């Protein structure tokens, strides 16, 4: 299979390594604005897995050049900032290439779904949001949904921590612009059959994640899962769909500092006559932090998908969970990169092998066969566990939940 990868950033490097590692992939064209970064990533891959990856300078804003560049390839994996998703999809339509990306932060995802007919007519497939979350989480929801007759709610949770040691003042596991967007935007959640916009950081509660995260305070954020899951499972009766994220207190406070004083802002300000967007200066300074040769990588994202519904009239809750950690094959990657950047690669390979056959713009929960997908994940040390909760002897969940409270009779 021949793939184009756009973006050699935090996730691009992981996608590139995964593609190069795979025997199915024969050629990868890696485009980035920053050719030096693209060359660095290509060389890293080629040194490990033989010459497969070619780096090119690519300004995706130039449509004609983008179309010419991707023409003739089997698939485009878009790992650049999500602001450009629709733009890249249009180029894929023109060049007749399948398309995958790693998320559109709800707003873009909604826009992307409108290209469904065009992709279908062209006999092409676009999978929006097939990274870690959205992505792996959507497939987890699909696995549980297959086992249920009706669905009441699907709730997603992501807890993050990092025990790595570095001399850098500040490091993140995915794009700082996206993190700040998630931090600022009023989160849209699907509650009681309606999409509602909630206050930022609302819904905060202690969520129990698997070890090594444990309990972490998590709150609502804008996320792509909510753009597709309620539509896909409408027929099964879904009433609620939410997404909560948890950070360490230290990370949350740092993000809050950036957000409050305005360093996370996108709008341009006037600095001694020069117009700049503060977030871009922050991002640049983060990039300019000197590499620490003694840096150790040891992070964890726990993704938890909870699906509540009925099977044969009895209420069931499925919990699918994975602790995404650094892996042996790619010691240079954080655990977060392995699953976020890896998922579009192994999905593209499933597409290449004919395991994904749908046409149109289809979210992961619609077009990806879960079992096969989880087998690929397991090859990358991403192990998804599933638990099924049901109450024996009765179906009174409310009574059961009451017993878990210290003051059980309190309203």
């Amino acid at each position, binding site marked *: 299979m021949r793939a184009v990868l756009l973006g050699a950033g935090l996730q691009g490097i992981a996608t590139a390594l995964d593609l190069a590692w795979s025997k199915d992939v024969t050629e990868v064209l890696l485009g980035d604005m920053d050719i030096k970064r693209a060359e660095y990533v290509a060389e890293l891959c080629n040194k490990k897995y033989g010459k497969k990856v070619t780096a090119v300078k690519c300004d995706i804003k130039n449509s004609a050049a983008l179309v010419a560049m991707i023409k003739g390839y089997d698939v485009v994996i878009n790992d650049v900032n999500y602001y450009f998703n629709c733009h890249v999809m249009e180029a894929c339509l023109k060049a007749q290439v399948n398309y995958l990306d790693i998320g559109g932060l709800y707003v873009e995802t909604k826009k992307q779904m409108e290209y469904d007919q065009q992709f279908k007519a062209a006999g092409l497939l676009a999978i929006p949001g097939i990274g870690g979350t959205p992505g792996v989480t959507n497939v987890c929801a699909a696995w549980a949904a297959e086992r249920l007759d009706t669905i009441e709610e699907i709730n997603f949770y992501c807890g993050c921590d990092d025990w790595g040691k570095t001399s850098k003042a*500040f490091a993140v596991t995915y794009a700082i612009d996206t993190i700040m967007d998630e931090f600022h935007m009023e989160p849209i959640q699907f509650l009681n059959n309606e999409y509602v916009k909630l206050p930022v950081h609302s819904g905060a509660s202690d969520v129990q994640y698997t070890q090594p995260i444990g309990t972490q305070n998590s709150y609502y954020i804008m996320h792509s899962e909510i753009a597709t899951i309620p539509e896909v499972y409408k027929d099964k009766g879904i009433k609620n769909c939410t997404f909560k994220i948890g950070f360490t207190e230290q990370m949350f406070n740092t993000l809050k500092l950036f957000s409050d004083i*305005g360093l996370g802002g996108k709008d341009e300000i006037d*600095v001694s006559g020069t117009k700049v967007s503060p977030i871009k200066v922050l991002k*640049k*300074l983060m990039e300019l932090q000197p590499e620490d040769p003694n840096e150790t990588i040891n992070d964890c994202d726990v993704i938890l998908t909870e699906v509540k519904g009925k099977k044969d009239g009895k209420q069931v809750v499925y919990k699918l969970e994975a602790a995404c950690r650094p892996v042996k094959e790619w010691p240079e990657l954080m655990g977060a990169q392995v699953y976020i950047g890896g998922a579009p690669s192994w999905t593209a390979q499933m597409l290449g092998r004919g395991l994904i056959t749908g046409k149109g713009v289809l979210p992961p929960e619609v077009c990806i066969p879960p079992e096969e997908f989880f087998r690929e994940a397991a090859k990358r040390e991403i192990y998804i566990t599933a638990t099924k909760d049901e109450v024996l002897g009765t179906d009174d969940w409310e009574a059961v939940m009451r017993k878990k409270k210290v003051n059980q009779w309190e309203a």
Partner: protein
Amino acid sequence: MRLVILGAGIQGSIVLTDLCDPILSPGEKDITICDYNFPKAKKMADKFGVKAAMCDVTNHDLLIESISGADVVLNCVQYNWNVEIMRACLEVKAHYIDLGGLFHVTRKQFELHDEFVKAGLTAVLGMGSTPGTMNVMAGYAASRLDTVAEAHATCACGDFTKTNAVIGIPYSLLTVMEEHTLEPFILKGGKLIAVPSGSGQEVIDFPQPIGPATAFYCIHSEPAQFARSFKDKGIKEASFKLSLPEEFEERIRFLADLGFATETRVIVDGVAVNPLKTLVTVVNQYLDQYDGSQDGELNDCDVLRAVVRGEKDGVEKEIMVESVIRTSTKWGFMAGALDTGVPPSIVAQMIYNGLVTARGALSPEQCIPPIPYFKELEKREMPVYVVEKSPLSSNDFTSLNIVMNRSK
């Protein structure tokens, strides 16, 4: 008494407030307050019924015109123009006071010493809180000793104002960031040497309401001043350490580590951008928009501590002089601003009234009579006291240091 204040910022306005207080600052005065931003100067001047003038201190002719006829010029603008303003004072034969030169500029200013002596004029360099009161305190301690081995200045800032603001700036953010990145100088073994910024961290037990707080070396004029002033008494060690409120310190240190303290431009989307100026712009915008209506009353504290070690009559002594300053109940100024803005007013009047007789470019410890000066501070809610430590079982602290420094 004809006085010209340069700069109508926070410090200039406190200087003016103090000079115009009929009880604290009696006597006829002819005062002019100048600023590059004339309306700003005019607003202050009108409040107190004094004169205002537009003055760009970088324009020599305009500067001469503004200060000619003055008995004392009080320089309250950013320290970069200290040398030029001193030269202008020599031309118009005026005494000179400023608030400090952040080490490097202060050292250049000392080069004008002989010219000030020749002109029969006094230039008091660094006459705010620290440098300033701190130096007078060290000078007092040194006056009680025959020899001086060490002189250390420490300043602790506390802020107890109940606020929701994520970052409150006690003084110029530019200076705060410089203090976190420029290499500090200390006097060690008789030589001024550079040490890494943020080094020398130690927890110091300050008096209430601050209590134990972490202090670190930071660039300041005092080590250079003490080295010069106490040279004849044999000084070998001098330093300046600063302690800021913990949370504030953490945030500033973090932003500095991340690169926001540098003025070296970075390229963002093909445009060269100054990170420090970006931060200052963003923070000022934040503070402008910040709604403080839910905040409590201003409530801050500065502690100034000078510790001088040496000998008196062959017996080793450690003399600590300290001052605790809170938000002004009289004027409402924050402690950190009050203690910096009031000293130039006191000293200008002391010069005019013949209480400062030494001539030349001098540090406060060389020319300000301590006790009369401290009495003026007390009138402005800034009490000063001394603690003297002497050995009783021998003539020095050698045995004490051995037992105290043994590991736990």
